[in-house]
């Protein structure tokens, strides 16, 4: 079974600063997908960024980037120039599809990020 670990229950960052959220996972699979989702206090879960395991290049979406280290099974999220609207719960998610099967999804327990003005 796949597991996803987010070891930082809560974090805070000053506005305009940079923060990194950590995520590690455990799997014996080689082909899978990793995601970071954001859940603001209004609760709608929004996709922040995705990474395909077969891609060596780290994904980047504007102020959001990841540090994907496949051998170390690590998938951290870096938020640059933090904004007040980045205040939210952040969830790391692991998805894989076994051959002939259906997608299997595992979420971490989340990291609560507070951006301080």
């Amino acid at each position, binding site marked *: 079974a796949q597991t*996803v670990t987010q070891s930082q229950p809560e974090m805070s960052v000053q506005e305009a600063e940079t923060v990194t959220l950590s995520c590690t996972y455990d799997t014996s699979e080689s082909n899978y*997908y990793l*995601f970071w*989702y954001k859940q603001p206090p*209004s*609760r*709608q*879960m*929004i*996709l922040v960024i*995705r990474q*395909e395991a077969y891609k060596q290049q780290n994904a980047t979406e504007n102020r959001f980037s990841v540090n994907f280290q496949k051998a170390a099974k690590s998938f951290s999220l870096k938020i640059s120039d933090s904004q007040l609207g980045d205040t939210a719960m952040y*969830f790391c998610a692991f*998805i894989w*599809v076994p051959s002939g*099967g*259906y*997608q*299997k*999804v*595992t*979420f*971490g*327990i*989340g990291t609560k990020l507070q951006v301080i003005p």
Partner: protein
Amino acid sequence: DAGVTQSPTHLIKTRGQQVTLRCSPKSGHDTVSWYQQALGQGPQFIFQYYEEEERQRGNFPDRFSGHQFPNYSSELNVNALLLGDSALYLCASSSWRGLAHEQFFGPGTRLTVL
């Protein structure tokens, strides 16, 4: 594009009652997954529907059941409600052949069991 919609927004039930939650997937999506999110926790996978059949199921009892309709919308039914069923129930839709199996989430239904 309306995105994923869920109804109702909030629901209050008493122990032993039954509840039905509804989800309409994002336009173009054919797969619906349901999750239970307890307070302060990450989403826990309940089950997934594709082509009107339950394709896989998480570690939830048979009190949790579902249905998918020909228009891809879905229902989650919970029978014999327990206090521990109080949670945010999230619906996520995706395309079976979509990009990287990305899931789009609805706003959720907050269920309170008294």
